[in-house]
């Protein structure tokens, strides 16, 4: 007993992709306000193991908000109630004693459930493989300072590049659209001089892959931006649309 929060957890349990899932209810007590949300799940899991039950499977790794692995849908919001925070950085001081917390996996056709709260996000890797790069082999680069880049452009590219690929944008969107994710990479590279040569090809290829993966169209509601733990701006989607249409309309 480290703290005094007593909570009711309703957690989605699903054995694997082939089996139907359902909510199970658990009580946890003595939760400290200084715990992270995942440490609270650790407490529950340790108890389940002691009792001979199967612990709740969930994705996590760095636990400092940067790897993008954690992915819980908490009380109807990706990464829970706080703005600009991943689940691993969400702390229990954001909850109150006696509260009921509902925890689900990301829900999207393109992110099939693997087990409990773990989903398959490999679609994101395939979108990057389709064009999210600058084609430069190792060893051919000129001196880094021979290409000055205005600070504002570099800063804006960095802001887009801060995406951690967690998929909260998809989970937040009623259409399960991956436009914020895809546009962040397209924007980063479109804003930099190094990215110009492949600019139109990149936009077309990445958008085509995104569609093929089964992500939906943009809902224009801005839920993705509101729920993004890294504050990726929805302006990136506008830029992606400009990139895409100018590419499609000017293609030979």
């Amino acid at each position, binding site marked *: 007993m480290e703290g005094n929060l007593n909570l009711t957890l309703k957690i989605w349990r699903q054995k694997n992709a082939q089996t139907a899932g359902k909510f199970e209810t658990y009580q946890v007590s003595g939760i400290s306000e*200084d715990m992270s949300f995942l440490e609270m799940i650790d407490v529950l899991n340790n108890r389940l193991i002691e009792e001979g039950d*199967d612990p709740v499977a969930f994705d996590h790794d760095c636990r400092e908000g940067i790897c993008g692995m954690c992915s819980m849908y908490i009380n109807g919001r990706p990464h829970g109630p706080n703005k600009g925070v991943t689940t691993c950085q969400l702390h229990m001081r954001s909850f109150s004693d006696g509260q009921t917390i509902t925890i689900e996996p990301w829900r999207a056709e393109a992110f099939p459930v693997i087990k409990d709260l773990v989903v*398959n996000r490999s679609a994101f890797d395939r979108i990057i*493989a389709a064009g999210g790069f600058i084609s430069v082999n*190792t*060893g051919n680069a000129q001196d880094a300072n021979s290409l000055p880049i205005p600070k504002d452009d570099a800063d804006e590219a960095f802001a887009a590049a801060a995406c951690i690929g967690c998929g909260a944008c998809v989970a937040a969107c009623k259409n399960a659209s991956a436009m914020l994710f895809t546009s962040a990479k397209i924007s980063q590279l479109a804003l930099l001089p190094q990215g110009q040569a492949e600019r139109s090809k990149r936009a077309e290829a990445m958008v085509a892959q995104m569609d093929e993966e089964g992500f939906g169209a943009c809902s224009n509601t801005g839920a993705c931006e509101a729920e993004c733990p890294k504050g990726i701006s929805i302006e990136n989607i506008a830029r992606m649309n400009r990139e895409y249409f100018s590419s499609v309309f000017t293609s030979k």
Partner: protein
Amino acid sequence: MTKLDAKIPEGSLAEKWTKYRSSVSLVNPANKRNLEVVIVGSGLAGASAAASLAELGYKVKVFCFQDSPRRAHSIAAQGGINAAKNYQNDGDSTFRLFYDTIKGGDYRAREANVHRLAEVSSNIIDQCVAQGVPFAREYGGLLSNRSFGGTQVQRTFYAAGQTGQQLLLGAYSALQRQVGMGNVELFTRHEMLDVVVVDGKARGIIARDLVSGELERHFGHAVLLCTGGYGNVFYLSTNAMGSNVTAAWKAHKKGAYFANPCYTQIHPTCIPVSGDHQSKLTLMSESLRNDGRIWVPKKKDDPRKANEIPEDERDYYLERRYPAFGNLVPRDIASRAAKERCDAGYGVGTSKMAVYLDFAAAIIRYGKAEANKRNIHHASDEEIQLMGKEVVNEKYGNLFDMYKQITGEDPYELPMRIYPAVHYTMGGLWVDYNLMTTVPGLYALGEANFSDHGANRLGASALMQGLADGYFVIPYTIGAYLASEIRTPALSTDSEVFVNAEKAVKEQIDKLMNIRGTKSVDYFHKKLGLIMWDQCGMARNEAGLKMAIADIQALRKEFWSDVRIPGEANNLNPELEKAGRVADFLELGELMCKDALDRQESCGGHFREEYQTEDGEALRDDEKFAYVAAWEFKGESQFELHKEELKFENIKIAQRSYK
């Protein structure tokens, strides 16, 4: 004891690498298509190696235990990456970066490797910029630099406090490009569980598909382990939850020597432990020491809040003890100094195991500079504060946010409370100049090897080394081996040696699953961590290490008779994954203590209480210990020591001084 041959090329230090590159065997493009390379790990070293080797035409397979290569823990590196560009015109050079690294490592690294690292450091920055990595820039559009510990020049390139993320995403993009082109086959949610050795050469791996639980056999003409460090042996560390030693340890048990396992880096600036529930520790980047000042109250057990303690009652102990480097002394020194103050009763916070990292002075300094820039002549204190905070936010915003998120305190208003935590392991698999382990065809890159940082790594050098190994070293050095393998056909994975290797892995898994004991994996991991932290952490002594070895042996025995792993082995089972990793940590921990016991000197991060100067600095014994300790596995609890003599031909070896 055999003498280890590091295969260092002939010639003067500055010419070795250039000459080597011009004379190393090449593999022609038609042959590259038939040569397969297995790469385990997708962090900076793994992703950069995979992309570069695939670009050259090799057939590459990449394995990572996470759901995407982009999650590797390199992503969490904050502060920056060093390179001897001398863009600041402040006297930097290849030699100076080489010198700083050798000295920072307390003269326990190999000269030839470190010089090569310094030579290619500039190429890394060029390569990353070409890939679109958005480094911080000045208004003129040129790259910005900052200072890191253990140096007096500004050679650190950065992207806010997310440099590792941006560099990894650059390497990941290059890797995904090769995946898209069909040159790399990617295996995510896969964990390597053994190396397959055929006739003394590494020929592939056994991997477990973590989702289906199935074991798979993969052939490779060469195997590259880019699997990071083993800091999680301490349970609490700044490593990711999944970071582990398993790949390196399995290789060790198959004949790869493990070098300097006792060299661990305790990072001085981490958020202190808040309770027993703690699952990991979070680093506050060393870059914060550019502007933050570290202090404790001059009075013991001072009950006052930080803001209530007047300036002349604060002890800026790093500035006091090391005026030349001040707050930017190397990590091992800063960590020990914090421990010394806390042990002496001057610690702060509820646990009294913390010191302050204070930005108040920096905020005012930046605020005044901004006021000047903007031509505001009579700025009020509030305006200065506000402008200063804006500057600090731009430099370190994400770190400040993270601190606030974790502690619930606002570091713009109150000084941060910090304490040292396990962060990096300088030890690792022994490799020669080619990055090859003692098993032919088996390589180790990045943090997984031991070679470049000696007994203490300087800040912003891990990213440099990971990318140097992957982008610029292995593409050349692997040719030296593969050129003689062009006649080796791909071995069928149905051959007996692969079948037997898989069988042995399966038996190990079955053994773990069948224990059906009473205690969780974490129970054992936490216990091991405490033993390691208490006896093999920031300070070590003979009695403690001997006790630790006995304790670890007993704990290992208990683990193998009483661990409880729920669920089954034939589907996603994180507890089973953890159990396998902790089983390996329970063996590694013993070797670390053994190595620490054997090294009867203090150097860098290895501080033996028996060997210190009068003012508490590490006391090396160059007569007896100027060697790399490379351990050969001989059976449970049995390790044979081999030595690689370290020769310093270009640097005058001296007592490290940062005063």
